[in-house]
């Protein structure tokens, strides 16, 4: 359940396409404290591969992903 994760920042990435969702996430991660969580909703299916790749490359944590129809919800945690 999404209620278990308290988001420090909520991002609306609906309608945005590559590379903008990853760009927005990378900008937003600087706005949450270390250990903080971003909750984002996107519609570009590319984020399913790209956000985990971004997290791995930048040393942050891909917490989880949920699909709600066409929307994709994901949570990332800032680790450093």
């Amino acid at each position, binding site marked *: 359940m999404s209620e278990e994760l308290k988001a420090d920042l909520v991002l609306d990435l609906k*309608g*945005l*396409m*590559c*590379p*903008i969702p*990853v*760009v927005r*996430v*990378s*900008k937003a991660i600087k706005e949450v404290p270390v250990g903080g969580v971003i909750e984002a909703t996107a519609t570009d299916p590319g984020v399913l591969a790209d956000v985990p*790749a*971004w997290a791995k*490359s*930048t040393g942050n944590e891909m917490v989880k992903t949920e699909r709600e129809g066409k929307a994709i919800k994901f949570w990332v945690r800032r680790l450093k």
Partner: protein
Amino acid sequence: MAVDHSTTDVAQLAAEQTEEEKPKKCAIVMMSGDMDKAMAALSIATGAAAMGYQTSIFFTFWGLKIIQKGGPTGRSLFGRMLSLMNRGGIDRIGPSRLNMGGLGRWMFKRMMAAKGVTPLLELRQTAIDLGVRLIPCQMSMDVMEITEDDLIPEVEDCAGVATFIAEAGQAEINLFI
């Protein structure tokens, strides 16, 4: 022994520090002035910057069109003709295939907009905002009679191949587009 130990520690620490501090880099040569290729280059550059890579794009030859303001250029007859037949500016460039005298450009722009793809101009601005370095090639500018005043103000000083090699030599990602 103690000395050895501390030296190792220092060396290890230094190695760890350099590894941590050494930035990841991405170096791109933008040779083409085509809309589709510019889109690929700017998408990769913004993506790389978002993923923590220090990214530079070297604009050479037709690629200069992507960082031109879009006004007429050239001094000599040939230089002015070049600008007349092949005007620079990110809004004027067309796709590498099916441009059909500008119809293709119009069509692609519409199709991209319909799908919510970021327009090139905005993508270039995003790259600039993320700190992507835009470096024009001095030699191409001289040949094509394009001056620094013809380029957008966000570009860095013109440079040559040595600057590119210095950057590319440290970069994990090197692309020629």
